[in-house]
Each structure stands twice: as structure tokens, then as C-alpha cells.
């Protein structure tokens, strides 16, 4: 949907694709466990309005795409401010910030702090900066060499026979035939 430079600040209420974009942003914020309806509504409106303005320059982009890109920008900027020098400005910043939010239990302990217009509390900032996950302490690599076990002559003989029968169908047949014949003879003797 194209927008003229003189367009209003917000998409028209009847624009289906912008309604979809509004709902998608709202869902995305809820997915971040923002629960207060007023906060969700206000943030969504701001994000959609920014996306609407952007659509003037990128008319080929779908409203949902523009709105979610804007939401991502708002969230990532907030992470960059909170994490400060602890943040690596890479494509992983969003993920790093979300991990920090989760580990600091921001949705539980500071439900109104995330994306709020006021700076976050110091405790939240500290908790987010200290948050990390790792699969273990730095490894100290050790060698574990398999123990040699001498299995004895019988096992060696069985192993030799096993390999021989496995490699050659002819040898396998030579082993199987006497076994089957023996079984047949046993059954004959049992029921004769």
C-alpha cells in the first residue's frame, strides 16, 4: 500500500494489512511477556506509526514486515542502551538481550521496565549485564585411552570364526548347514 507524503500520522482504520501488522506487533510484544494492556497498546501504536512513516520510502514492503522490523529496532536499541559496553553489536544482540532479560527474570521481577520510556532500574541493568549461560566451565581436556582387554583364546577363536563367516557367504553356508542338519537330527531323534 503506497502512502502520499501528505498522509496522516497513522494508517487508516480500514486498512486490513495495517490491522494485521498492528496485531502481529501486539503478539510479538506479548511474546516478550509484556502483560499490561496499556503498555502493549501504547508501544504497538508507536511502532506501527513509525512503520507507517517508513512505508512512504519502502512502499513495496508489506506492513507486517515494516512493523516487525521497527519493533526489532526498538527492542534492539533498548538492549544496546541497557547492556552498554557489555553488548556486542552484532546480529546476535537481539538474542543476547532476550537471553539477558530472561535470565534476569525481567518479566517477573520488573514487569514494567522493558521498553518503558524511563530508564530501567539499576538492579535490572546489573542483572542483565551479569546474565550468561554456558554449557560448562572452560574444559581441561583429558585423554581417556580405551583399556586393552585380552579376551582369552576361546574369544579370539570365536572372533576369528565370526569374521570369517561374515566375510565369506561360502564359509557362512559351511557353518550354517551342519547346524541346521544337527537341529533336524535332534528333532528326528526326539519324535521318532
Amino acid at each position, binding site marked *: 500500500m503506497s502512502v502520499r507524503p501528505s498522509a496522516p500520522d497513522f494508517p487508516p482504520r480500514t486498512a486490513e494489512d495495517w490491522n494485521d501488522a498492528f496485531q502481529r506487533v501486539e503478539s510479538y510484544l506479548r511474546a516478550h511477556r509484556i502483560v499490561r494492556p496499556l503498555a502493549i497498546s501504547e508501544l504497538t501504536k508507536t511502532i506501527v506509526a513509525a512503520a507507517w512513516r517508513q512505508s512512504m520510502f519502502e512502499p513495496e514492503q508489506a506492513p507486517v514486515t515494516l512493523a516487525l522490523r521497527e519493533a526489532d529496532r526498538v527492542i534492539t536499541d533498548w538492549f544496546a542502551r541497557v547492556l552498554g559496553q557489555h553488548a556486542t553489536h552484532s546480529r*546476535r544482540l537481539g538474542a543476547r538481550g532476550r537471553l539477558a532479560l530472561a535470565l534476569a527474570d525481567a518479566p517477573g521481577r520488573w514487569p514494567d521496565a522493558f521498553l518503558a520510556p524511563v530508564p530501567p532500574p539499576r538492579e535490572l541493568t546489573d542483572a542483565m549485564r551479569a546474565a550468561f549461560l*554456558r*554449557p560448562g566451565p572452560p574444559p581441561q581436556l583429558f585423554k*581417556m585411552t*580405551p583399556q*586393552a582387554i585380552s579376551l582369552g583364546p576361546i*574369544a579370539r577363536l570365536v572372533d576369528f570364526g*565370526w569374521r570369517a563367516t561374515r566375510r565369506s557367504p561360502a564359509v557362512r553356508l559351511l557353518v550354517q548347514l551342519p547346524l541346521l542338519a544337527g537341529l533336524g537330527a535332534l528333532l528326528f531323534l526326539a519324535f521318532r
Partner: protein
Amino acid sequence: MNSPLDQIPSGLRFRRRVLVGLVTATLAVPGLALMADLHWRAGFDGWKVAHLVLFAILLGLVAFGCTQALVGFVARRGRGDRWRLGGVTSPEMLPPGATAVVMPVYNEDARRVFAGLRVIYESIRATGHLDAFHFYVLSDSTDTNRWVDEEAAWAALVREFDAASRLFYRRRRINTNKKAGNIADFCRRWGGAYRYMIVLDADSLMSGATIVQLVRLMERSPRTGLIQTIPRLIRGETPFARWQQFASRLYGPVFQAGLDYWQLDESNYWGHNAIVRLAPFIEHCSLPELPGFEPFGGRILSHDYVEAALLVRAGWGVRLAVGLDGSYEECPATLIDFAKRDRRWLQGNLQHSWLLAAQGLRPASRLHLLLGILAYGASPLWFAFLLLSTLLLHRQLATGLTLVPRDSLLDFLNLDFRVQAGVLFGGTMALLFVPKLLALLDLALVRGAKEFGGWMRTLGGAFVETLASALIAPVLMFFHSKFIFWTLLGRGVAWVTQRRGGDGTPDWREAILTHAGQTAFALLWGGAALALDPVFFLWLSPVLVGPVFSIPLSLITAQPPRPGAPPRLWATPEALHPPAVAALLEQRLSNRSNRAPVPPEFIADYGLLQAVLDPYVNAVHVSLLREKRLPDDDDGDRFAELRERLTTEGPAALATRDKLTLLLDAQSMIRLHREVWSRPAGSLAPWWQHAMEQYNQLAPAPTTALDD
């Protein structure tokens, strides 16, 4: 005065083992002589020699079990065996950070795994010794749902306990050598940082006090390489699980004391609920590959017995902590689940045949390996014995002659042929039932039956348990014989996919398809026996009743308890008065059972759904993936096509392998999170659209008369 932590004198080991051998022989030889004499009186032939050999092996096993109970019963009298390993009460501090509590998991219910770990963590914290421990969940999970659940549950636990430097989670991409390889991987990476490792199973539960005791015992006994605790069975709800719990709790103590009496410091390892000294474990317990190929050769599946044998071979003590409580595990809920577990264990134990004659192993270790093989191998032997008994009768009747027994070689006994057979049968039954009577007597002498709910319930439970054992033992004989037959042919056993009801009720279809063969075989066998001789049929019928009724038996014993009606039969002390850790675990699990169920359309790919859509689960997942060192503008996007298909067609369009590939790629997971959320509905699979609705559920307007 010796302490149980001192070096065990080799003379003591020898004397005790000679005693156990003599008692076993005393119990077995008369029965064997009576059976041999019966065959002699009826006329020996090759079939009877085979019959006698099978009888000797089976009777030897029964006599050895009875001996262990007898010896254990005596050892528990007075002040008990002075070499018995119990707790240490001294309050010295533990070495800080020297013990790793490791829990290998493989596609287990993450909710149960982490609830158990949480309880163990809290219990250790309550002892004041948390600083001495680090915790590792070592995942080999291949099911993406389980994997993502594990990551999220771990992150939640780390957050709750602020334990990022104490509680770790590592998942292997390739499950080389299964559980043994999982533990070995831990040892190679982090084993050097710890003095001890406490190995748990996914369903293990141990109290903090017990874990602290284990570390103290190891500190006090520098030549001990491993201490195995005896886990008690808990949380059984179905009659089958409660039956196992009751039997192991009631009869266990005398058997365990007997086992500990002869094995002393050459005990065995059961793979979990044990403490291991890491340095000798790393040095001596890396397992070699066996000659040949699977199912018998290749990688060792049942690693624990072999690891204990290798530790003992290297001169390290392996002990069974008979006197230590506070160690628990769960048991299979149904007969079919039990059989499935046996199928896995059986193949591993059969592999041990290679090691029986291995050079350098101690005789006790060889005996452990042999007993492990016979735990399953006895089933086909028993089956063959019964079939051979039927055959012998057929051969006798086929002659058309009346049996005229010749004079007995044991004529000093002055027994009629039929009376002699009856005495033999009675003696064999006595060997089976004496341990149960000894266990009941032990209970009366030690604590009384109050902890089992009183004598009426205990005796009633023991009586019904005996009947249940008699019914189920032949069913297991059929199962094990089939498993061994298929294993010898190098084939797997196919199982019916279980479809338990929503309320946990068992699956009729599974029970019918699993047991139908046993029922048919038992009916045919019974019919043949009846046709041969009605008296023989009566003798054989106790073995056939269980398999004939195996379908209803399996279903009845798999029934979940009725809500609000605690079962009265087969109560155990742990069920009547749950230990603190078990009660806490139950509380944790019930607290979390209030979560909304996953909609059925998402169940198959719920892990992927969360890892892509949920901002926090996605972040946790990505943080655990290795970052590829690639320039920002070129990430070598090899998976763009897979992502596109996943986004536009949904997870059903991708093979499991492809989903796993995406889940293992950090850039793909970051991109998928962004792409799925920012795609317009028209270019997004309906599955994703529906999944996103979960985050924005708007209640529909109430229907009014105006809407009609």
C-alpha cells in the same frame, strides 16, 4: 577394631566366598542328586542328560539366591556385618567444588528430569555444602521437542538459583557410544577439574545428606574407586510398579546384605546413584570395543559392570553402601514397559559373554558378569527345561509301556518314585520361598511391619505378591526367550506404538498385540500336555496360567490409581511416609501440572515452534549453539532453502533431519525468529499463523440472540 573403610583383608574375602560356595552346594547338591536318581530309575538317555544339565544350572541359581538371603539374614543379626558400609557422622568440611553431580539424559521428560535435579540441588543446599558441588545435565537427546524443553528448563533453573557458574547443560551433537560415551565425554572435557563424580539417572533422586555422606566416605577411604548406593523404588502408581516396589523393599535387605557379605570391596556398579573417583575412572575405565559386530560385538552397551570390573582389576575398591539410605529411583509402570527395558539391558548383558574369560579380571567380577548374563539367560534355559520335560513324557508315553522304575541309587532314603519326585519339587519350592520367609522374619526382628502399614497388610501383600510373581515370571520367561532368540539372529524386536488414554489408562491394542503370541503358545502347549497326560498338565499349569491370561494381566496391572483412593495393597514405607526429597519432588511436579496443555496440532513440533517463535526460548537455544566465524554480510547461507520451506510450508514439509539441521545452526534460528514473525500472512504457512495466535488470544464475542 576394623573399620568398613579399611582395606579388606584378602583372607576375609576368601573365607566368605568359600562359605557362600559351600552353603550353595549344600542346598543344591541334594536336589541334583534326587533328580539324577529319578532319571536313573526311569532309564538314562541323552535327553535326560540334557534335562539334568539344565536342571543343575537352574537349581544352582535358585540355591545361590537362597544362600544370599540366608547369609544376609545372619549377617544382619546382632550389630550386623562389621564390614558393612554405612554413613559417616563426622562434620568435617568437604573439598570445595570437587564433586560433579552428573545426570545423563536421553529423550527423557524434561519436566521430571529438572524437577528431580532441582530437589537434589535444594537438598544439598540445605546441608550447607552447596559449594562442594557442580551440577551437569549431559544430554544425548535426539528428539527436538525434548531437546528444546531441556534447554528451557535448565535456563529456568539457572535463573531461579542464580547458578550459571554451578549448574551446566551440555548436549552432544553425535551420541557416540551412547550413555558410556556421554559420561566419557564429560570426563574428557571436565573430569580433570573434579575429584569425584556422582552419577544419576534421569529418574534418580538422592537426598543431599546421602550425597554428602558419599563424598565423606570417599574422602575417608582413598583406595575406594566407586561406591554404589542401593536405590529404593518410589513413585510407582500402577499395580505393576507398586508390586515391584513392595517386593524390592520387603525382600531387598536380606539379599543386599548377603550380596555385600561375599563381594565386599569387589562389588558391582549399576550405572547410577553412585559416586566415582574420577582419576582412576579416567585412567582405567575407557571401554574398548569388543570383537565381532552387533548384537554381540562392537561397542559395549552395558558399561557399568565392565567399568566396575576394570576398577577392581586395577586394584581399586568398589563398594556397595548397604547401610546408606536416601537413594531412590523409579521403576517401569507396566509389564510391557518392563519388558522393553529388559530388551535393552539383555543385549548389553549378553555382550558380557566375551569378557567372562578375559585376562586379569577378578573372580568376583567374572561372577557379576555371569550372573548378569544368567539374569536373562536363565529364561530360555527354563523354557528349554520345561519343553524337554514335555518331550521326555511324550517319549515315555510313545513307547506304550508302563514305567517300572528300577532301584534307587539313594536307596537309603527309601523313597517311592512318585514320593521322590514330590520331595524334589517341594525342596525346589522351599529354595524359592525360604528367602521370602527370611525377609519377613527379618522385618519382625528389626523394625516390625508398622512401616509397611501393619502385619495384616504386609502378609497380605506378600501373599498376593507371591501369586503375582508366579503369574508374571513365565510371561517374562517368554519375553526373554524371544529377545535372546532375535538377538542371536541379529534382529531387533518390533514394539507396538503405545497409545495410552488421556487419563493414563493402558492401551488395549498394545497389550493384545504384544501378548497374543504368548497366549497362543501357552494354549497350544497346555493342549498338548493335556493330551499327553492330565497329571502332567496339572504340574505344568502353574507355568501356563500367566501367559494364557497375559493380556488381562498386563492391562489390570497397568491401571492408574483412582483419584482420591490411595491403594492399600503393596504399601511401602516410602509410599506411606514419603521421604522429604520424594515429597518435595511430588509437590514440584504437581505445581507444574497446571500448565495449559499443548494444542494437539503443535505436539509433533512443539520444540521447534518454541525455539523459533518464543523470544526467550529462541535466545536460550541460540546462546548454546556454536557461533560460526563468518563476516556479517556473508554467513554462507546454506540453509536458506530449508528455512524458506519451513516458513512457507510449515514443519510437516521438512524431514526430521532437516529440522535438526536448522535447529543446530545459530544463524538460521536467529533468522527464522525474525522471518516468521515479520512475514505477511499470505507468505506464511497456516501452521505458523495459528501458532502465533497463541501469543494473542482474543476471546470471541459472546454469542447472543442477536447473532442467531
